[in-house]
């Protein structure tokens, strides 16, 4: 009976890595003392972990900086709140900063999304190219960030997708898809991963702009645009089905 019967390479590996239990360690050591074949097997498994650690350490220094996270979300909230303030001030006239209506209730992500969208004008989207391949790559990246297949969002019958980007609110990623209508009016579809109660289409307004909202239990959606309610409702239908 050979001493190393029943000791597999996996056991020797665990032994080398300090992961073998006491019984196995004892067996290996006993067998090593008496069986040269086992020693040869151990040698075949040998690697210089110290050298590996040193090599791997060097790779660390090639790493890029982390994306600035904490700064981003707090800053974005401030920027959006400021944007809404400026817009409202402009509409009402300088010096009239009402803190009622669109400004209050800026608590949840959809309020911020609507306030942000109020900054969009036709000129914002005009310079953006419409190349389908670029859209596809963007949609994939943005879709991954919110855990939703967004490729169908490029296929709207009347709205033209101009850009897909990732915004953030608190710690949430918001998929922000910017469209232009046939008349060049900017329309935005925003998607966030939020589990909760599903609800069918609700028309309303937030931050002083028309919205169409729905949720399917895993995600919340909002379509925003300064267009008549019937048009916005009709535009929402495609997304509700396809996305």
């Amino acid at each position, binding site marked *: 009976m050979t001493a190393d019967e029943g000791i597999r390479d996996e056991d020797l590996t*665990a032994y080398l890595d300090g992961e073998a239990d006491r019984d196995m360690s004892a067996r290996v050591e006993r067998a090593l003392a008496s069986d040269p074949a086992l020693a040869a097997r151990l040698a075949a498994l040998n690697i210089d972990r110290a050298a590996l650690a040193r090599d791997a350490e060097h790779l660390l220094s090639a790493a890029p900086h982390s994306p600035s996270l904490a700064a981003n979300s707090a800053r974005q909230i401030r920027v959006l709140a400021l944007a809404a303030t400026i817009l409202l001030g402009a509409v009402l006239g300088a010096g009239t900063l009402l803190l009622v209506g669109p400004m209050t209730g800026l608590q949840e992500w959809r309020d911020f999304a609507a306030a942000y969208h109020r900054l969009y004008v036709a000129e914002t989207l005009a310079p953006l190219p419409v190349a389908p391949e670029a859209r596809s790559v963007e949609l994939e990246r943005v879709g991954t960030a919110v855990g939703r297949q967004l490729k169908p969002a490029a296929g709207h019958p009347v709205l033209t997708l101009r850009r897909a980007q990732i915004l953030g609110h608190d710690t949430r990623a918001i998929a922000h898809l910017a469209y232009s209508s046939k008349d060049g009016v900017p329309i935005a579809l925003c998607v966030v991963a939020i589990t909760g109660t599903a609800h069918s289409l609700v028309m309303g307004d937030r931050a002083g702009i028309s919205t169409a909202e729905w949720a399917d239990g895993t995600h919340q959606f909002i379509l925003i645009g300064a267009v008549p309610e019937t048009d916005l409702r009709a535009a929402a239908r495609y997304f509700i089905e396809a996305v």
Partner: protein
Amino acid sequence: MISRKRGEGEIRAEITQSYNRLWRYCVGLTGCRDQADDLAQRTALRGLERSGHYQAGTSPRAWLFTIARRLWLNDLKAEAVRRGSGRVPVDETDLQDLGPPPETNIFVGEVFRAIGKLPASQRETVMLVYVEGLRYRDAAAVLDVPIGTVMSRLAAARKRISETLGEERD
């Protein structure tokens, strides 16, 4: 409620303080600097977004590695579907080896370079255990395999690396 905040805090801290380790793990997965940059960013974003699912006081690093891995596997699947006629490999290990080989010189140093030559499933196990220092049990959790699989991959990797280095020296 409190532990949710704590969990989020741990994830934020891990991302800001140990982003280089997350990135290095992404290099191990993708074998490509650009893809690693992108994967690490998406992982950080997704990790923060889902930090409510992280159990405070466990391992933020292992948790983020799991996310990176899942995102990467999704990328591979999407790429496989795009390239082949919708036929996706059933086996995850087949899927991993559909990716391109690692970019030249990304794994610098004799031993590390040998790791770059391993099949993807062995390489990612080695990255977790020998580079990141995870225990077998924690690596098994990240990889979603039994501990026995971790052990057999490491044994196979050790043999291969040892052979590769032996050849290079001759």
